């Protein structure tokens, strides 16, 4: 085997390999050593570590060194792109295939993966999108990306215990004010001016909501049962009640909170009836994982 004159240590080799594989210009351009006209915050991604490990890479008549490095560089981007396409399907539909590739290339400059699970690599994408130039053209981009990342987290939330609805029947009248409800950890309360139900269920072509940034704020409830993530509308009463129960508050406290919101004039009347209706739908939708009236 050929020996290079000055063998790099393993750390130096790995740092150089990381650079050449992830340099946004691609292997050939990166090796040409042209400093790009890039955002200063991205410049570290373009700087070749010293010493170079290029002489440590073996090529042969079958395939040169650049082509061999290209296999890894192309694989790096393709693998991450594929994972993000899966998690951000609606974002991709909104900005188009080329736009999505550009968005992800820019994202990786600022947010290279620090996760063991490739499924986690899109965690910072919604916040990144809010600062990206594309969000000026596609005003709904941040909201849609938030929706999709929430769905990923929702999917991975732990299932709770199976809840037996007959537990409600065993409550005495004096137990009800102290009632606490434990919800599935998958639940998310979202609020948006966009029609999230239609967007989630892909009933609305991206072009129809691409420029939307107005309208009145609506609440939505996202949950996951048996591995299926669903989104539905929620009333302001229901949103407040769920958030209040999730903070560990009792039914009496929840009623106070809902009433307080009602006094702001933002709420429909009939609180008790509302809550009983909510209990029914939360039970049938398997959103409740337990109840207690002690402590």
């Amino acid at each position, binding site marked *: *085997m050929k020996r290079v004159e000055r063998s790099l240590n393993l750390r130096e080799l*790995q740092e150089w390999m990381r650079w050449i594989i992830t340099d946004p210009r691609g292997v050939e351009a990166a090796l040409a050593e042209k400093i790009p006209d890039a955002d200063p915050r991205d410049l570290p991604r373009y700087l070749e570590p010293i010493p170079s490990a290029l002489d440590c890479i073996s090529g042969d008549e079958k395939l040169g060194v650049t082509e061999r490095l290209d296999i890894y560089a192309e694989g790096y981007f393709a693998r991450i792109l594929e994972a993000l396409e899966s998690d951000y399907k609606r974002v991709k539909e909104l900005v188009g295939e080329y736009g999505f590739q550009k968005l992800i290339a820019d994202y990786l400059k600022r947010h290279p993966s620090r996760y063991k699970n490739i499924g986690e690599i899109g965690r910072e994408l919604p916040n990144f999108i809010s600062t990206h130039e594309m969000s000026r053209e596609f005003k709904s981009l941040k909201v849609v990306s938030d929706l999709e990342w929430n769905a990923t987290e929702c999917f991975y939330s732990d299932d709770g215990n199976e809840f037996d609805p007959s537990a409600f029947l065993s409550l005495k009248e004096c137990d009800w004010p102290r009632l606490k409800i434990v919800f599935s950890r998958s639940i998310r309360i979202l609020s948006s001016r966009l029609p999230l139900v239609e967007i989630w269920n892909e009933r609305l072509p991206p072009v129809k909501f691409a420029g939307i940034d107005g309208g009145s704020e609506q609440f939505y409830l996202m949950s996951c049962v048996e591995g299926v993530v669903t989104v539905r509308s929620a009333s302001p009463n229901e949103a407040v009640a769920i958030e209040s129960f999730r903070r560990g508050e009792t039914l009496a406290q929840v009623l106070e909170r809902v009433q307080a919101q009602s006094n702001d004039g933002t709420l429909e009347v009939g609180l008790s009836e509302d809550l009983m209706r909510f209990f029914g739908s939360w039970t049938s939708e398997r959103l409740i994982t337990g109840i207690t009236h002690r402590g």
Partner: protein
Amino acid sequence: MSKKPSQLGVGLGLRAPHYSYILENLPEIGWFEAISENYMGLNGSGLGRPIRTLEKVRKNYPIVLHGVSLSIGSTDEIDFGYLERLKGLIERIEPEWVSDHLCWTGVKGENLHDLLPLPYTEEALGLVSSRIMQVQEFLKRPIVMENVSAYLSYAHSEMKEWEFLAEISKRTGCGVLLDVNNVYVSAQNQSFDPKEYLDALVPESVTQMHLAGHSQTKSGLIDTHDAPVCDPVWDLFSYATSRFPQTPTLIEWDAKIPSFDVLLEEARKAETILGKEFR
């Protein structure tokens, strides 16, 4: 449920598109291999639906956990947070054994999500051996290391890949997951005799074998796991079974995943060569 490794026969990679089919039909197959990271959830979230599914499969089949992010060859510190999560998964699933790859996947805290080859030097040998010992101590069990497909080699390597792998196993007591397709792909891309690779391994160290399909591109063979096992790899597998008889063998198929029946056909073919009955 627990069987001696040699009794496991042929298994299949457990993939999401087949969850329902497997749980509804309980097909005749010796065992399943699950990608560890797919069942470790997201940081700050739970383990979600996937772990529940894996637990259901576990009730009916032996499971082997196969990781892709241990990065045993990295010069970064060992990620004990990751190992803690892996340990939790091991305790929950009680796998037959736990494997990962003899490679590095990232450095400086970044994960490139690829199985990058190591230079085969004394320095790398010392580092990897030490890290495997630490991982085995932490997990309280020997681990199994798989050879990766490589599209390049390093001019300053001081030994052959197979010498490196055999020495790692000798120094640490870790098992070897011999990926026959990876040996073939690397042999074609780097012009060596794949049988020389197999001949160098100590038979007792080989815990498991992998079989998979690859793609022919203008850049050579790429380990894509998106096609049936090709004839030259079946031939090499036949040779491997003579060197490492009755070694549990797994069919991997990770992209363009076909119907379960297609995977079963591949498994039957492997079983015929392995010369054993299912389960």
